[in-house]
């Protein structure tokens, strides 16, 4: 049941959800036994790897697995995306952070943007199981970046699909349908969850603020350890600074200082670029190609 530190964590399944989004199922019974919707894990590929925080997309307690979904954006996620079933990762810690507060609120709206569809799914499912009327909105830049439409439909009473470029579903940003839902007071929306890129979450909270409906966001700030030690993930709320890893990752989006958050997210952009360049160079050289050394 408990793993020893010489052991690694096996990748059992891999699926490409979109050209840049991968799903992986990883054997980690010590994480799955307690995992709940809204929590996250820390993944470290190998000895050289950074500690990558990823929200839990699903879990299977019987099989002792955790499902993670990630977009290949930087060096670490590109590298992770090249691993296959049979490969392992060096570290897998969690479940971290507080789970989503699930109860029967009445009517709720779950918004997932881009790769944010992955973490919103278990939340929508849990809310549905708790008896809520669940309206879901999923959106992406374009059609081939959408995934899990059917899974979302299965746990929602109503599903709205949109793309920025209109290549599939409604041609709109997710902020429009949420405004419409709130405008129609007959909907009586009690609570909203929004997960996606920081800029999307910011504008969802801007859209919902006038209606005063509690809007929960899941923040993915820069973290090192993910256990409360570094404070790098701190976010400014109305009441002061809090740590995303131990106080979150979910917060009342109306209280978040979004401009501060967006600015802190971009602080390491140059280094992220450098890491990607270095990674491509190493792949060409043939060193550390798959992180198996």
């Amino acid at each position, binding site marked *: 049941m*408990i*793993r*020893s*530190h010489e052991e690694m964590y096996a990748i059992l399944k891999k699926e490409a959800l979109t050209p840049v989004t991968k799903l992986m199922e990883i054997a980690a019974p*010590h*994480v799955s*036994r*307690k995992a709940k919707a809204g929590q996250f894990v*820390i993944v*470290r590929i190998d000895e*050289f*790897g*950074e*500690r990558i925080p990823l929200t839990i997309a699903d879990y299977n307690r019987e099989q002792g697995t955790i499902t993670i979904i990630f977009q290949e954006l930087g*060096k*670490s996620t590109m590298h992770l995306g090249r691993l296959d079933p049979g490969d392992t990762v*060096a*570290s*897998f*810690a*969690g*479940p*971290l952070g507080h789970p989503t507060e699930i109860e029967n609120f009445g009517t709720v709206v779950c918004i997932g943007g881009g790769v944010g569809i992955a973490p919103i799914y278990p939340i929508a499912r849990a809310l549905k199981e708790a008896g809520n009327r669940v309206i879901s909105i999923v959106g992406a830049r374009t059609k081939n970046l959408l995934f899990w439409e059917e899974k979302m439909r299965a746990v929602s009473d109503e599903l709205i699909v949109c793309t920025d470029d209109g290549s599939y579903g409604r041609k709109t940003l997710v902020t429009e349908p949420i405004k419409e839902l709130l405008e129609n007071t007959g909907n009586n929306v009690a609570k909203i969850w929004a997960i996606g890129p920081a800029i999307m979450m910011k504008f969802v909270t801007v859209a919902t603020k006038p209606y005063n409906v509690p809007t929960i966001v899941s923040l993915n700030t820069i973290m*090192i*350890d993910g*256990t*409360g*030690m*570094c*404070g*790098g993930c*701190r*976010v*400014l709320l109305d009441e002061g*600074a809090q740590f995303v890893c*131990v106080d979150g990752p979910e917060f009342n989006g109306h209280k978040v*200082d979004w*401009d*501060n958050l967006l*600015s*802190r997210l971009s*602080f*390491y952009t140059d*280094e*992220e670029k*450098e*890491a990607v360049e*270095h*990674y491509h160079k190493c792949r060409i050289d043939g060193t550390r190609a798959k992180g198996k050394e």
Partner: protein
Amino acid sequence: MMAELKPAERMKIKRHEMPNQDAHVRRSNFDEVALGYSSETAKEEAGRCLQCKDPKCVLGCPVGVMIPQFIKALREGDMEKAIEWMKVKNNLPAICGRVCPQESQCEGNCILGKKGESVAIGRLERFVGDYELRHRTCPLVKSQKTGKRVAVVGSGPAGLTCAVDLGREGHDVTIFESLHGPGGVLIYGIPEFRLPKSVVSGEVNYAVECLGIDIKTDHVIGRSFTLDELLNEFDAVFIGTGAGLPSFMRIPGINLNGVMSANEFLTRVNLMKAYQFPAYDTPVKLGKKVAVIGAGNVAMDAARCSIRLQALEAKKNGGDRREVHIVYRRSKDEVPARLEEFHHAEEEGVIFCFLTSPVEILGDDKRNVRALRCVKMELGEPDASGRRRPVEIRGSEFEMEVDTVIMALGTSPNPVVFVDAAGLERTIHGTALADQETGRTTKRRVWAGGDVVTGAATVISAMGAGKRAAADINTFLKDEAAWE
């Protein structure tokens, strides 16, 4: 072997300097600063010990290392004996010899120090520890198995010491560590140039192999398993989770880009090896003018890492002058860091701004740090800690131009371990309530020790607490009735 010297002759031998990497060389590398005694130097230094009948040095040691005995064996050239004496009380001498504040402990009590210079006990301890890491002459031995199981939460100095002592008594020990490698603050906090990671892994692996201790990394107790769940599987639990939660000053501007806790900075540099970025994935962004706030050991570590990162950056990209400041509200006399760290920091070019207290961090239009607004202080009447209280000088405000601010202002225990631990009481400071002598908490079968009980302190005091708790746990496991 040297002929037996008379005390007067011993007292004539001068204390041997520690050979160090030259300050100008070492400020651009992360290699160890102190190079260690040669065996000749170690024997000569050991020759200075007067072998007091009533040794005061031992009283100054939190774990009571048998100092005169190991020094005698060392000067007689019997390394195996020296190690045997060492290991009666200290299982991790290569670590203690490097990081203990000897000047206020063993060496502070040394009789030679009253008139001249004390015996360099710490350096001799390190010499013995290093010899043993290379030669492994005196493996730790596990007593006959008791069949009792102990869970140790945290693999820092307190947890490791407790685990090793309980392992030697024949108990089955499992350590749970939340990070990806064992060592706690020894690997995330203390820099490579002060305590090489190979020394930590050497000591840990040696002990773990000898005693069959199981280490579960990536296990966050309070999340993966709760304390109450551990109590279902284990006969006793020791909590040594340290004080890992950083404190930030309550001043405006702490969320600007370029402000970090010393924990973030040191974790990036030490645990994640950011000084080797991009070979290692984790970067660290450091400006040209760094202000480290605080003057404890952590502040010195952060400042000295900054000096090195800046020097490496200058080598790579050239460019302007770079500076690292330590900003401290008291004076030089109150600096809480180990004396040696303070000297090393000075030698490496850290600029000290004493009697200076930050009141605000100022940002530019991109929300990056541009300056630190400070006030000058003067020392007033002594406060509760016995140190003279710094008082603000009116109208002394000034701006210090910096682009990085590192806060080294102390840490408090991480509360996550206390999730689902009914009956385990804590103080208002968030530390676990535990008996100082036995480590017993308010919850039956649970002990605690180290920084999680005392708040941020030293490696050796945590080891002492781990050791005392191990003794009490051992009594409990062997004869519960007698323990009561």
